[in-house]
């Protein structure tokens, strides 16, 4: 048992070492997500599972938007429309009793791809601010069409009779099964977008972002490539819509509101554009910030706003960029502290009274969390150098503690 565990961990480490840094981060994220359902009973039950599902669904949407923003240089401000189109396709079919996977999923993908083709064919003719405005306009058009869909709930939205049936079974009603289904979709999306970026098509798309004049001079017509990218991104976001409709068992026009499009852009920027693990990190960071901050105060956006300003100012590559800088030791602990200090000052300046007036219990919790974080960062800093020398060190420690834990659990089990 121990040997098997040791060898499997060794294999995992060996595989990790062959990957690029970004892929390593992504692999760790996927591993963490895969463990979440096993940990959730200990950490607050299915609530954690639901947050994890939301993170993964929005990570798929953010990945598709990264394909436009980071790879294609097209800042779409109407990307939530595809989320809505995918969700509505799923919801409307379900309300007619067509809620099976073989119908609903292709319908969601095709509907969002068609919407992307129709709007993209026009939008992609423009660049820069005009592209932002035209995608915003198309997004809002989709939003208003949804509010006027009286047979499907109009403003109020539409409740799904049940989650999509898989081979006639309600397997997705099992939250753990549904969680892993979303995780699989996210992994497929990550793989797909990664391959696409490195393909012939992806190279052309990246080249067009770098210097369009050069690309035309060597014989590439930008339009066809950009429309294709728009359609691919749209249908991937439609997949996120399909999953979102299933997760909430509800479809509403709010899914395609421009504010949602803005949040998707924030996720991509916060996570770090130019990488594929960035959007996943960004979706996770945004939703968890939203979750924690909105519990502290109802004015949580007053905290999130300055925070985003700081990210844009100090960490241009977002979280992924900061991680990369940290790895290359370009980002020092002092800078991090300065950034945190700056954030604290900005928040104080924003006059978020609620922060200080929070219940004592909550404050105690926050204080403890701060202490914990302080201790952890201290430890991380002191351990940083040896870790840099051998990545394996961290994993060896992890393995040892895992072995100790297992031994302890086994001992307890026997005593029982």
């Amino acid at each position: 048992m121990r040997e098997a565990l040791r060898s499997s961990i060794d294999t995992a480490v060996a595989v990790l070492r062959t990957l690029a840094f970004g892929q390593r981060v992504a692999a760790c994220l996927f591993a963490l997500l895969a463990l979440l359902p096993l940990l959730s009973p200990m950490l607050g039950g299915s609530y954690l599972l639901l947050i994890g599902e939301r993170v993964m669904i929005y990570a798929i949407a953010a990945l598709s938007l990264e394909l436009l923003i980071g790879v294609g240089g097209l800042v779409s401000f109407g990307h939530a429309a595809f989320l809505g189109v995918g969700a509505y396709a799923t919801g409307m079919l379900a309300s007619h009793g067509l809620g099976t996977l073989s119908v609903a999923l292709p319908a969601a993908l095709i509907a969002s791809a068609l919407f992307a083709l129709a709007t993209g064919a026009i939008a992609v003719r423009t660049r820069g601010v005009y592209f932002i405005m035209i995608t915003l306009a198309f997004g809002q058009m989709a939003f208003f069409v949804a509010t006027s869909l009286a047979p499907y709930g109009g403003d109020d939205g539409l409740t799904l009779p049940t989650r999509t049936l898989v081979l006639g079974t309600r397997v997705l009603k099992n939250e753990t099964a549904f969680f892993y289904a979303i995780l699989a979709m996210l992994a497929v999306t990550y793989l797909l977008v990664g391959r696409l970026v490195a393909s012939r098509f992806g190279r052309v798309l990246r080249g067009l972002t770098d210097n369009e004049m050069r690309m035309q001079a060597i014989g590439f017509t930008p339009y066809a490539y950009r429309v294709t990218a728009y359609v691919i991104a749209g249908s991937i976001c439609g997949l996120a819509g399909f999953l979102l409709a299933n997760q909430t068992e509800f479809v509403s026009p709010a899914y395609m509101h421009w504010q949602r499009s803005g949040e998707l852009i924030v996720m991509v920027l916060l996570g770090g554009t130019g990488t594929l693990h960035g959007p996943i990190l960004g979706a996770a960071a945004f939703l968890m910030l939203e979750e924690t901050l909105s519990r502290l105060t109802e004015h949580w956006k007053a905290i999130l706003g300055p925070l985003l300003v700081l990210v844009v100012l100090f960490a241009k590559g977002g979280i992924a960029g900061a991680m990369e800088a940290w790895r290359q030791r370009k980002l020092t602990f002092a800078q991090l502290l300065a950034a945190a200090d700056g954030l604290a000052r900005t928040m104080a300046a924003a006059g978020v009274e609620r922060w200080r007036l929070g219940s004592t219990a909550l404050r105690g919790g926050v204080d403890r969390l701060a202490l914990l974080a302080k201790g952890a960062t201290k430890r991380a800093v002191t351990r940083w150098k040896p870790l840099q020398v051998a990545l394996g060190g961290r994993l060896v420690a992890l393995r040892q503690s895992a072995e100790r834990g297992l031994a302890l659990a086994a001992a307890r089990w026997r005593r029982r």
Partner: protein
Amino acid sequence: MNAPVLRLERLSKSFGALRATDGIDLDILPGETHAIIGPNGAGKTTLIHQVSGVLASDSGRILFDGRDVTHMAMPARAHLGLARSFQITHVLPRFSALENVALAVQARSGSSFHFWQPVAREELLNAPALEALAVVDLTARAHTPAGALSHGEKRRLELAIALAQAPRLLLLDEPMAGAGAQETHRLIATLRTVKRATTMVLVEHDMQAVFALADRISVLVEGRILATGTPQDVRADPAVRAAYLGEAA
């Protein structure tokens, strides 16, 4: 006499009241290196932009290999074999030198609507790209991002990209622009090799380069062709001496 590769008929382009090119007639013959010289603002770059398709012409016709391309978009002209370099460097800064050139090969070899296979491993693209880099002596810098190259290296990369297109006609817009004396010598030597296999139109201010490379020279002044002929003819032309080279030349 062979049919011209490029024929310009009464080609004109105005910006407001300014006639940048004003009824230009010009034949570029197969195999020749044809230099276009003239003072600043004579319309040389405008002419190159019109021929390559960056700018639409107001009037006149452009015939490439006997085919009317006057209203054809730039990428389509590139596919016919019309390659160009830019006076202001246009490379892809985040791409390596090799990728910059490999993209030019990719543009002429098959569809780019492939979404799965990693393009960086396509030897059919990399091998010709490396060849083009070798011609301009950039092999050692193949994996350096183009944005990190020196100015002279970027100028050579521009040339390598155009060469990798395997052009029928190469339009070079001041390839020596901003290059130092040593770089200029190097580029002249490179272009000497290139001209053996390629028909070229060379817009250049550097007279040393022009007289070293050109088979024929056209002098452009205020949007019109003042004279066309061999370097000796042009050097001796009194009108040219008065208008451009100056009495001292």
